């Protein structure tokens, strides 16, 4: 069977998403946008896993790992947003530069 899409092209898309996620984490001041950057990075990792998994039809290890990554991303988003809501309740802001008190 002829190869439809070369493996490298998946990897190129994935590294673009990864560096965009790193940029969002480094530059944004709003906590929720930082969480969006984390989601972008998790997605880029998943693209890699799934792209390699198409050459592994017996074991499907990449796809299985990708499922667990998706589940953990959901748990991470839920806990992260709960923490952000708590922070907002206490400090009335989610700006990372203003959150500099511990045990506030």
């Amino acid at each position: 069977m002829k190869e439809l899409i070369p493996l490298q092209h998946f990897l190129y898309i994935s590294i673009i998403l990864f560096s965009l996620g790193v940029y969002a984490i480094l530059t944004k001041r709003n906590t929720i946008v930082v969480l969006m950057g984390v989601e972008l990075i998790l997605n880029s990792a998943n693209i890699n896993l799934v792209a390699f998994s198409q050459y592994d039809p017996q074991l499907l290890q990449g796809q299985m790992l990708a499922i667990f990554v998706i589940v953990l991303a959901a748990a991470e988003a839920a806990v992260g947003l709960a923490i952000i809501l708590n922070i907002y309740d206490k400090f009335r802001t989610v700006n990372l530069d203003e959150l500099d008190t511990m045990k506030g």
Partner: protein
Amino acid sequence: MNLTQLLFYCFAAVVIGSAIFVVTTKNIIYAAFALFSTFFGVAALYVYARADFIAVAQLIVYVGGILVLLIFGVMLTNKVSGQKIQTQERNKIAGFIISLAIFLILLVTIQKANFSGISWINEIKLKGQELDPSTSTIHAIGIKTMTDYIIPFEITGVLLMMALLGAAYMARRDSGTEKKSD
């Protein structure tokens, strides 16, 4: 290049374009909605990598769950009346340089990597045994979840329950502090 391949690059353009919009726009609501199309596009890329179940799971979990949670978070952590919901930025130049450096390092690595020399991929290609796009992977994934991956599966179940209970407990407004602030 046939139509299927052309569509792949269209989806890739959607993914990359909307991801760039997510990180460049100042309006958080716009960023959340651009993230919608990023996740949709990534689901399409999964289909091209012959992972139909992962694509559907991506749609359900990311688009249906995580994004709604994010938008809830945006709504609950901003004083909506009056001012615009925006995010400020800092270290723009340093952040750009660092992420560009990471991008270039990975790009060079991928271009120097010898993909035609990976033996297990070549073996599968030679036999023509790649994942068959005409058959669904759900059957195989279901059997694997209940045999090889049963322990990770159960642990993930416990972890999800803990995470969701913990999140619900933490997000609950504490009645004690509320009285104090009143």
